[in-house]
């Protein structure tokens, strides 16, 4: 068995092992991996996600077991310090010695730290390893201002990370005249700069850092132009330098800019020693990206397994797309090539901050390079056009607008026209043919399964949009059309059923099932249709109580232990002392636990099913109504106190919140709807985390939509600004009805919005510009629902047939004898289950 030693367990070193094992199995080579870091290889490309909650473990390329299972001897915390090329041994810092037949150097690179005074101060960091990030995170907690030296790909990513950590001011310091000088031209950089400034970064160009100031710890930077800034933390991201220390020690040749010099087989000047990844210098070039490293790993692994059919490395494409930074930037091929070698097509929109440049051959046939800022939707297609030398369409500028053009445009099918060899995922080298075969053979219907079956999209993830398009195009070509059908009983999407029920004016579940469904229904389609019926007619839901979800069926939230909670509506959170007293009395009388909710009202827990009508009767007599806390319906419209009392309040937010809550109370939708009204930008009602939110401005109100708190918080987006009350209500009517008509079941507005093609511009078009011509219809439908509103608890209490449904046993008046409570802080709680 030949012995292979891999020095360095980074992304490329790991990928080499993975490829070698998949080609040769475990019994051809004896593999030892020596890695300097304390843990197995992890995904450095997604390192920044460590800040957004990923753990070191989440980022691992493979768990430790994987190495064991594949009989790879992984030694972490082992730095290779020397190579004896004659004895073919490597030596580690802790005095151990290992023999090799082949040595693979995959030592990567280290951040380049320029010669500036003060880099040894506390609070100065680089951005390369998990340990670096741990230190940045800890230090960043007490920092207010921060700075990053280097306005390249990595520097911007680091700057965004500082911003996300909550620093108040973050500088990006760039030596050159523009950001990302290696990927972008001047105009593109200028647009990117505007975008970043909008995100909150401060960009300083043409700045040569002279000293890092501060005693023990950094407190600022001074520049050669005598200017200075304050900064409590600094990340240096000024480029990389290959980890080639071993070259000098054992006499391996180096490239002109460092790195182990390799040939097209990735052999160093010693043919049994290879170098791959960021430590290799091929034709004078160091590739600072992961995909070329993976290519190198493929070539070496292949050649070791099949020496008779050698593959070669011939350089690599450096097209990139910036991730994570909150704005879209990409560059393809040669971004800078100019006349006379190329013609350029440029599109610039200073309003929307978009810049796109195509460099095409003089005869207009081929794409040579491109720059995209602000809108990278076409990146995948352009990259393919470039890589596969696809002849450009008659009007190449259409490439810029392809997806926005119509269905019939010839670009729509670009993916299907690609050759099978077209590389879709460059990280994992998966081509179009392999993906289409997998879709066919495994009858794949979603992108995740493609990822599982082919590994495409599991590297940098940049090709995921293309996978989606490819899946859709392939399925469409096969005549399969992807739809989210309701369940086994209805072969329709919610939107289709909504229209069918509306047009045919059907009112009962059974009619609908008989006409459009099969079988006898289930717990998925019953509540979905119940919700559609409620959204169309707003009739009392208990007329068809057995198709309602439990909470709706008993107009109360089912609790642990089988009791229910009672939440009367308190519009806008405003309540009189008298009403407060009634709530107290009722809770006391029926032995209920009381709590102020997160929705500015009061919840009474622990009610027996049998007691619900009596409880509500008392509440209704005191002027309360149902709060619909149990329904996929309008919940609360939170308010802040606003101009009636608050010294900053611009308008009366409480009155507006009450008006809004009363307008939409009882409105049922695919999911619950929450809203809020704040009296000024201080936003004490948290309107921007609601399905719709209203904030007072000097001139009127700003309307935000599609926010979400809860499991995956998302800020609402601004739909319209400085509008008056009437316009605001008109837009909300339209917005809510449009959502109700088109969303899938149990989809909050935020999730619905994220899937909405065309995003906020499209929504604005529909709601404000009436681009679909349905605005009036939507308003009318809302008016019908509003005028049909009745408090359903009042009806339940007053209608004997409905009231009779609130019996725990139908053959005795006993309450559920199994219900048990435990005491807690002078109240009760449900018994643990």
């Amino acid at each position, binding site marked *: 068995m030949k012995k292979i030693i891999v020095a360095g367990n980074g992304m490329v070193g790991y990928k080499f092992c993975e490829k070698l094992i998949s080609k040769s199995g475990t019994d051809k080579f004896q593999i030892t991996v020596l890695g300097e870091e304390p843990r197995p290889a992890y995904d450095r490309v997604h390192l920044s996600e460590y800040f957004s909650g990923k753990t070191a473990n989440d980022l691992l390329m493979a768990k430790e077991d994987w190495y064991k299972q594949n009989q790879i001897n992984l030694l972490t915390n082992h730095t290779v310090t020397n190579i004896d090329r004659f004895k073919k041994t490597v030596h580690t810092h802790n005095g151990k010695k290992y023999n090799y037949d082949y040595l693979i150097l995959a030592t990567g690179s280290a951040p380049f730290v320029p010669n500036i005074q003060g880099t040894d101060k506390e609070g100065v960091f680089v951005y390369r390893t998990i340990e670096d990030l741990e230190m940045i995170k800890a230090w960043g907690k007490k920092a207010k201002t921060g700075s990053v030296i280097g306005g390249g790909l990595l520097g911007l990513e680091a700057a965004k990370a500082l911003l996300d950590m909550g620093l108040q001011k973050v500088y990006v310091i760039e030596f050159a005249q523009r950001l990302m000088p290696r990927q972008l031209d001047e105009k593109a950089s200028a647009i990117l700069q505007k975008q970043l400034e909008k995100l909150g970064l401060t960009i300083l160009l043409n700045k040569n850092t002279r000293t890092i100031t501060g005693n023990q710890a950094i407190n600022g930077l001074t520049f050669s132009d005598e200017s200075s800034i304050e900064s409590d933390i600094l990340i240096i991201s000024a480029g990389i330098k290959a980890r080639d220390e071993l070259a000098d020690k054992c006499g391996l040749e180096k490239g002109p800019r460092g790195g182990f010099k390799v040939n097209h087989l990735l052999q160093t000047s010693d043919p049994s020693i290879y170098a791959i990844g960021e430590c290799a210098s091929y034709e004078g070039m160091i590739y600072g990206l992961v995909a070329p490293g993976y290519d190198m790993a493929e070539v070496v692994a292949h050649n070791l397994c099949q020496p008779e059919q050698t593959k070669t490395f011939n350089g690599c494409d450096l097209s990139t797309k910036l991730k994570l930074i909150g704005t879209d930037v990409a560059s393809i091929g040669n971004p800078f090539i100019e006349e006379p070698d190329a013609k350029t097509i440029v599109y610039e929109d200073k309003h929307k901050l978009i810049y796109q440049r195509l460099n095409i051959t003089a005869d207009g046939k081929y794409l040579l390079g491109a720059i995209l800022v602000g809108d990278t939707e076409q990146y995948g297609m352009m990259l393919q056009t470039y890589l596969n030398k696809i002849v450009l369409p008659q009007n190449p500028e259409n490439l810029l607008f392809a997806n926005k053009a119509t269905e019939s445009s010839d670009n729509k099918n670009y993916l299907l026209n690609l050759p099978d060899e077209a590389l879709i995922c460059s990280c994992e080298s998966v081509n179009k043919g392999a993906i289409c075969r997998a879709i066919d053979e495994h009858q794949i219907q979603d992108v995740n399964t493609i990822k599982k079956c082919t590994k495409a999209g599991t590297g940098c993830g940049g090709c995921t949009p293309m996978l989606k398009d490819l899946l859709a195009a392939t399925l469409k070509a096969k005549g399969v059309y992807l739809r989210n059908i309701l369940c*086994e*009983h209805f072969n329709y999407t919610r939107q289709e059923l909504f229209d069918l029920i509306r047009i045919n004016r059907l009112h009962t579940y*059974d009619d609908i099932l008989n006409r459009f469904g099969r*079988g*006898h*229904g*289930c*717990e998925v*389609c*019953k*509540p979905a249709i119940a919700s559609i019926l409620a959204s169309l007619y707003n009739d009392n839901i208990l007329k068809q*109580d*057995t*198709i309602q*979800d*439990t909470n709706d*069926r*008993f107009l109360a939230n*089912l609790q*642990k*232990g*089988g009791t229910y909670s009672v939440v009367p509506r308190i519009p806008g959170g405003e309540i009189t002392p008298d009403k407060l007293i009634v709530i107290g009395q009722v809770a006391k009388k029926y032995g209920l636990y009381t709590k102020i909710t997160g929705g500015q009202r009061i919840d009474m827990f622990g009610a027996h099913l049998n007691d619900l009508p009596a409880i509500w009767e008392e509440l209704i007599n005191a002027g309360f109504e149902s709060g619909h806390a149990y329904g996929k319906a309008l919940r609360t419209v939170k308010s802040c106190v606003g101009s009636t009392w608050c010294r900053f309040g611009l308008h009366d937010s409480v009155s507006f919140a009450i008006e809004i809550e009363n307008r939409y109370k009882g409105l049922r939708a695919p999911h619950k709807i929450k809203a809020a009204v704040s009296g000024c930008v201080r936003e004490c009602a948290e309107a921007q985390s609601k399905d719709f939110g209203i904030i007072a401005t000097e001139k009127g109100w700003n309307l935000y939509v599609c926010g979400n708190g809860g499991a995956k918080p998302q800020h609402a987006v601004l739909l319209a600004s400085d509008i008056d009350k009437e316009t605001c209500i008109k837009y909300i009517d339209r917005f809510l009805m449009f959502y109700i008509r088109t969303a899938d079941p149990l989809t909050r507005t935020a999730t619905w919005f994220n899937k909405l093609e065309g995003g906020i511009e499209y929504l604005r078009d529909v709601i404000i510009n009436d681009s679909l011509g349905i605005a009036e219809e939507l308003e009318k439908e809302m008016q019908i629902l509003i005028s049909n509103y009745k408090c359903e608890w009042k009806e339940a209490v007053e209608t004997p047939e409905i009231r009779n*449904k609130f*019996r*725990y*046993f*139908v*053959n*005795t008046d*006993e309450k*559920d004898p*199994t219900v048990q409570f435990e005491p807690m802080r002078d109240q009760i709680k449900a018994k643990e*289950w």
Partner: protein
Amino acid sequence: MNEVLEQTKWIKACRTTDIPENGGAAVKIGNEQIAVFNFTRTGKWYATQNECPHKKQMILSRGMIGCADNIPKVACPFHKKTFSLENGTCLSGEDYTIKTFPIKIENGYVYISINDEV
């Protein structure tokens, strides 16, 4: 066999109209809580234990009924585990079973036998 059947003790549980169409309700027989289901769409009636075995909650009578691949079922309101109304097996892939009881309708009344589970 025949003899056993004849010995079955039927207990009058409730009126048929006490149980909602295509839904269920609970009855108390002795100290047992039984869920009774009126599957109007197929004209069949079912009786099962009221307790959901998952978190031991007295709840199944309040669950929605329906079918999966033509097997009539009830879904627990708490965590939506589903059970066959015919033989009580859990249809959502877990190792639970609920008891089912013989049930018959006579003269507008529902009769259940709780001595011999089906």
